[in-house]
């Protein structure tokens, strides 16, 4: 009985769903606060993302005449649900191990493409030319960063697999267990290029400067989100908060999952997420400008891809 409740609970309450949402929104609040401080401002209250969400829930959703309504409204819902599921797939070292039946690292990788796809669908469903441009840019960005991401994950998986005597291991709990006995990959020189590539993936996946090209406010008026309002926009906010938790959690699991057991493990995990958010996201987004889509595309093909390939080759040869 309890066993059968396990999966829905993981998705809806902990560690996906509500917990991840609260965590994601808090992380966003922290991010905005630190960014403001770096810019010499006071910034919004920490709970601002929560307020925004409550406000959006109270507003009216407007569907443009040119939009296809079921797709227009369904897209954000699918995105939010997919991310809630993804959040349940990310283990918390020493505290939570996902049910292997839910899926492994490969499933997680697939789920991570859902937000981008949802944004593309949303962009084209809204029927606005800016949405359409947002669509093509989102697509280009996805093509750019998915390759390096897969290679990074493959490098880590291969490192674990080879270390265990196999070839590759796409099971996150195994990757974590391996690091807990052999030391974190953060300190493994073979994986340093992969780590660098992974850090470049963060801003691209989370859609922040310098890679917020699909939603660039001054160019395409927030692109796919242009036509959204009220609760539907809120769902996108939920999706992006959950996504932050997922990709940050993935980074922690891949590179530094060392933590004590029990509740302390959860606390350590939170600290790591916060640190990663502030260093990998807040500082990056305030210290540079936006790239053009072709520049971003070239950047990903040049650096992260090369680094990831290098890392993979090192792991394979070592």
């Amino acid at each position, binding site marked *: 009985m309890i066993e059968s409740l396990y999966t829905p609970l993981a998705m809806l309450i902990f560690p996906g769903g509500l917990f991840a949402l609260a965590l994601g929104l808090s992380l966003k609040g922290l991010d905005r606060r630190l960014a403001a401080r770096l810019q010499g401002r006071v910034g919004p209250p920490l709970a601002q993302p929560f307020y925004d969400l409550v406000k959006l829930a109270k507003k009216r959703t407007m569907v443009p005449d040119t939009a296809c309504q079921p797709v227009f409204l369904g897209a954000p819902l699918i995105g939010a649900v997919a991310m809630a599921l993804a959040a349940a797939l990310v283990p918390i070292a020493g505290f939570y191990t996902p049910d292997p039946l839910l899926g492994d690292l490969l499933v997680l990788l697939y789920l991570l493409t859902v937000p981008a796809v949802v944004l593309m669908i949303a962009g084209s469903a809204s029927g606005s030319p800016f949405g359409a441009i947002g669509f093509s840019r989102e697509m280009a960005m996805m093509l750019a960063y998915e390759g390096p991401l897969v290679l990074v994950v493959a490098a880590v998986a291969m490192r674990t697999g080879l270390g265990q005597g196999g070839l590759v291991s796409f099971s996150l709990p195994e990757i974590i267990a391996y690091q807990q006995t052999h030391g974190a990959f953060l300190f493994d020189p073979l994986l340093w290029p992969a780590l660098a590539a992974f850090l470049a993936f963060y801003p691209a996946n989370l859609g922040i400067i310098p890679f917020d090209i699909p939603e660039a406010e001054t160019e395409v008026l927030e692109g796919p*989100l242009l036509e959204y309002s009220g609760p539907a926009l809120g769902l996108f906010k939920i999706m992006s908060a959950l996504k932050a938790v997922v990709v940050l959690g993935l980074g922690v699991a891949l590179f530094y999952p060392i933590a004590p057991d029990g509740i302390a493990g959860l606390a350590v995990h939170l600290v790591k997420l916060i640190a990663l958010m502030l260093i990998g996201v807040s500082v990056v987004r305030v210290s540079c400008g936006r790239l053009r889509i072709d520049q971003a595309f070239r950047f990903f093909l040049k650096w992260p891809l090369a680094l990831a390939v290098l890392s993979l080759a090192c792991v394979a040869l070592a």
Partner: protein
Amino acid sequence: MTSLKQMFSTQTRRMASLSPWIYRINAGSCNGCDVECATTALIPRYDVERLGCQYCGSPRHADIVLITGPLTARVKDSVLRVYDEVPEPKVTVAVGVCPISGGIFRDSYAVLAPLSKYLPVDVNIPGCAPRPQAIIEGIAQAIAIWRERL
């Protein structure tokens, strides 16, 4: 039970009122009020983000609409269309004397001010151009009105 419900509703309203998003419409202004709006909104010295405000790129995300300029004949239709795209509940603020009375451009063939003839205005911020502090003051009044409408 009803009191609990009431408490929930007041609490959510309070929280929601801490997140007024702002959209600026230029209805043919001379730049002064727009620059001051941008200054108010974006620079560290005034930082309206403290009030939870955020400038948004799309009218559909907005709660408070700042309108500057005397509403020229050419821009009227666009302004009205964009204004309609802002979802309810919303609050309209006329920034500068131009949208309120036409200001110095009154009596021109191309100027349709006052704005209140075409859409409901809630708060006026006279000034030419109003200083950022005055704009913040007006936004604060607008937030108070907006909270009642939520």
